[in-house]
């Protein structure tokens, strides 16, 4: 479904055909869930946040300007909902996921012999993402998974383009350092055993 398809769905929903909203949910659910998951680092929380974002979008649909891009408008809701969720969670408690060990050994994560290289990589990405803050996680996800430009990210997050570039650069440096260290450890492990 393209931009016109989104607009058609929105018009149908506003016209009283609420079922049309399920087509929008179907189209954006995976990307929404992935963005929420990358920011929250927890599947249950990500599902809650993603559902909440869809609910907010549904309630605010009347205020949506048809000339605008639905995806950008919607990702702004998802991003803000995820960030708010994380900040509220932080007020109450510190998640153990917020405190990853400096010397984490990814051989432990990838203990099972059946686990594939893909699983290892996913664990490594999740770990590296936890080492950066929630805003940086959001920016990284929008940049890499959604392949958004800094201008589009700026529209979604309300952060200036120049600030996004700085934050992205720092986040990438941190993540690369973690990934490269982990890869070196993995290489040593294979050499030893």
């Amino acid at each position: 479904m393209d931009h016109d398809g989104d607009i058609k769905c929105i018009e149908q929903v506003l016209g009283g055909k609420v079922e049309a909203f399920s087509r929008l949910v179907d189209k954006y659910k995976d990307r929404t869930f992935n963005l929420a998951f990358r920011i929250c680092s927890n599947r249950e929380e990500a599902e809650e946040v993603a559902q909440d974002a869809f609910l907010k979008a549904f309630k605010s649909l009347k205020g949506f300007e048809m000339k605008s891009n639905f995806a950008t408008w919607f990702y702004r809701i998802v991003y803000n909902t995820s960030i708010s969720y994380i900040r509220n969670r932080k007020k109450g408690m510190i998640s153990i996921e917020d405190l990853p060990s400096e010397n984490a050994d990814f051989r432990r994560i990838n203990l099972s012999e059946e686990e594939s290289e893909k699983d290892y990589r996913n664990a490594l990405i999740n770990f590296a993402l936890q080492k950066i803050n929630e805003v940086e996680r959001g920016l990284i996800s929008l940049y890499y998974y959604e392949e958004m430009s800094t201008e589009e990210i700026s529209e979604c997050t309300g952060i200036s383009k120049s600030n996004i570039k700085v934050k992205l650069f720092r986040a990438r440096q941190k993540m690369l350092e973690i990934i490269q260290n982990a890869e070196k450890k993995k290489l040593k492990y294979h050499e030893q055993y």
Partner: protein
Amino acid sequence: MNSTDKYDNDILKQYLNAESAEKAPEDFTCNVMTKIQPELEPLKVNGKLHTVKILPAIAAIFILTLIIIAVNIPGNDRESLSLINMLQNVDFSDLNTSFKALLNLDLPGLLTYLCVGILFLGIFDVALNGLFHRERR
């Protein structure tokens, strides 16, 4: 994406791509639509209540008409006065005469209209009550 925004030889791209993206649970759409349903209920009730509000307005107009008629039309007794006439004849300098004029008011006639009005009001109230509870159900 602008070419200037891209990082050359981006290693992270090998890790952060569509393959590593997380997928939403299978029942996700269903769950979202279930969450949306309660949001629709107040809208429906509000819409119906809007139409229901017309009935009290009609009842109020009807009662008001009855009161105006009761005030303007005098009773059968020739000497009796309508309330409007009585009010026009009030002489505040002579309160004793004004009190006598008040006694000339045909109260039984006025009360008949009021009783009919109260009866209609009661019928409307019962009808509205039934209608409201049916909408809620």
